[in-house]
């Protein structure tokens, strides 16, 4: 008798534990690793200041995030996806096919990538083509593609300083690398005749040094290795202006205004997409979205600026905030 009692209690306990899996009032967010630090900051703030549960946020990459997001509507699919590029038409169509038809698009700011160096050097003026020639695996020499022969910046262009090329950069798994390849490599090679399409292979003979995910480490290395350049996010430059300076690219210096206006060529916009169809099932959804779009977060003195977001110009910011506040359903037209 004793044993049956024990067995019953045990079984009941197992069951009740299994049954604890409760309804969801927690927002689920996926998407870009570039937006991740900003979004996780907002989620923490959201959890701490509104009494709502802290949203669960996962860094899956922009492509992966949009894929999960467009998988359908309902339990198990994310409510928001972050992206470090705009949604593509094919992705929008995939969403629509799977019934995700009511999406609101939000632009939160930009992110710039700089070529930094120790500020014991003078500011160098680079073009995207220079950078491309310094890091590409194959470069055109006399009209033919050969293995990159350049070891010194002055070989690329005689106006550049006589310094050995040595570049600390992010690894292939980082969002910064993705952006660098897109914004520098791809766009530079598209304008060069030698390539039929965008070329993004980075040389692996030790000139380009994979420095790991930690941008801070790159910054540290640069103050030791004063001849080298480092590729990292604008926010790290801003934090370390006492030890670093950055090359101008195509004549534009990396400054917040130039980046958010798009004048600085190596910059991209950051986005998130909201699944309006989930608003009823996940009540705190819009509270989170509105908090993200508030001046407290993405404004000129916003918290995200402190951690490296490059804020939008005020009128544009206002425009996006309004669009989000109206829960504007996006259409494929804006993406074309």
């Amino acid at each position: 008798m004793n044993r049956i009692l024990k067995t019953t209690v045990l079984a009941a306990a197992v069951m009740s534990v299994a049954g604890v899996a409760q309804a969801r009032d927690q927002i689920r967010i996926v998407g870009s690793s570039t937006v991740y630090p900003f979004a996780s900051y907002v989620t923490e703030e959201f959890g701490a200041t509104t009494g709502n549960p802290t949203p669960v946020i996962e860094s899956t990459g922009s492509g992966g995030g949009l894929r999960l997001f467009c998988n359908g509507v309902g339990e198990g699919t994310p409510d928001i996806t972050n992206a470090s590029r705009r949604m593509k038409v094919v992705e929008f169509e995939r969403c629509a096919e799977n019934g995700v038809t009511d999406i609101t698009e939000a632009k939160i700011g930009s992110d710039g990538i700089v070529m930094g160096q120790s500020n014991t050097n003078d500011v160098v003026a680079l073009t995207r083509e220079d950078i491309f020639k310094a890091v590409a695996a194959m470069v055109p020499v006399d009209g033919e593609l050969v293995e990159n022969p350049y070891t010194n910046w002055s070989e690329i262009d005689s106006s550049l300083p006589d310094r050995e090329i040595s570049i600390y950069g992010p690894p292939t798994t980082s969002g910064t690398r993705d952006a660098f390849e897109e914004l520098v490599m791809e766009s530079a090679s598209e304008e060069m005749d030698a390539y039929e399409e965008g070329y993004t292979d980075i040389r692996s003979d030790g000139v380009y040094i994979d420095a790991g995910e930690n941008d801070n480490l790159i910054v540290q290395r640069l103050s030791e290795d004063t001849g080298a350049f480092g590729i990292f996010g604008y926010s790290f430059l801003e934090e370390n202006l006492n030890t670093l300076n950055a090359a101008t690219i195509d004549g534009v210096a990396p400054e917040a205004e130039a980046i958010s206006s798009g004048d600085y060529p190596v910059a991209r916009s950051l986005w998130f997409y909201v699944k309006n169809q989930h608003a009823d099932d996940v009540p705190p959804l819009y509270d989170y979205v509105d908090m993200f779009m508030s001046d407290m977060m993405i404004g000129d003195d916003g918290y995200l600026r402190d951690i490296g977001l490059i804020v939008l110009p005020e009128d544009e910011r206002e425009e996006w905030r309004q669009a989000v506040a109206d829960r504007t359903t996006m259409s494929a037209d804006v993406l074309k």
Partner: protein
Amino acid sequence: MSHTFDDISQQLKHRHRKSTRLKWITMGSLGLAGLFLVLFFADMLNKGLPAFQQAYIQVEINYNEEAETDGRQAFDEELIPIISRTMVRVIPMELRNNPDMIGTSTNEWVLATSEVDQYLKGHRSSLSPEERAAIDERVEAGQVDMRFNTTFFTNGDSKIAEYAGILSAVIGTVMTMIVTLAISFPIGVMTAVYLEEFAPDNRFTQAIEININNLAAIPSILFGLLGLAIFINFFGVPRSSPLAGGMTLALMTLPVIIISTRAALRSVPDSIRHAAFGVGCSRWQVVRDHVLPLAMPGIMTGSIIGLAQAMGETAPLIIVGMVAFIPDAGVSFTEAATVMPAQIFTWSGEPEQAFVEKTAGGILVLLTILISLNAFAVVLRKKFERRW
């Protein structure tokens, strides 16, 4: 060549000297291993102990009307850069919940920013010289104080260094370990019982035995690949959840439990079994009523050691996504969670100086738990160990 007595005694001396030298070398090696251990613990304590102290600042909070929308308005302007934002951001909500607090003011000790904290601890800090001077002044006036860091134990992870704590990781670890034990303990004991008490000695049994020994030596990261491909991608177990992590770790712990349970079962003398069979018990009754109870302390010891091992494991959990950012921990098996070693890993990647200390502090907490578990296992073994 003839050997004189002198030659030989010379040689002998030489040989004995060599022999003694070997003794000292081996002793030195053991000493070296011990030295590593001492250095390691000294380094961790040196880095981690400051994490249990935290700078607090005494401030006046004015709950005025503006503070209901902007928490910053409740504080003196010069305080804003040195007190933790986590103290400021909750003020509007507090006021919304208790409207009659508006117009009052209190004098409280609040968290300082990690920069102040690091400065006071003598670490690298990005405070400007003026700010440093201002802090020094407040220290003189007794308005800044180092206190025991309760936040570290009552909070989950945070992007704001001074507010980051280990609680959500502890809860995640507990949830994960519940899953791990719930799966690996019964299955492990059942497997061991089968192999020791029931299994015929045939090819199949041998295959299982070889397989278990092999499983024990497979790199843990491969269990992560299994968890990712089978549990998450195939069975659809929620990513990052204690369920996914616990199941993966359970498979990893299984060989440890099986091997130690078998040893425990083997140490029960056959006379007990024979006596039980003699009074007409069936095989299962013998195992259930006689062998298992006697082997239980040994089984428990093995399971605790296996549990401690699983608790410190990180690599497979990273693969199944248990490195999520969890500010407030939920008690759920299916929602995203993190565990202590994963939290240590995440913190170690944070660029801020304050997180180095947090990492080492987290390590100290984890090591304390692991060492107590192992000590408990040893005590258990000592207490119930029986010589037949």
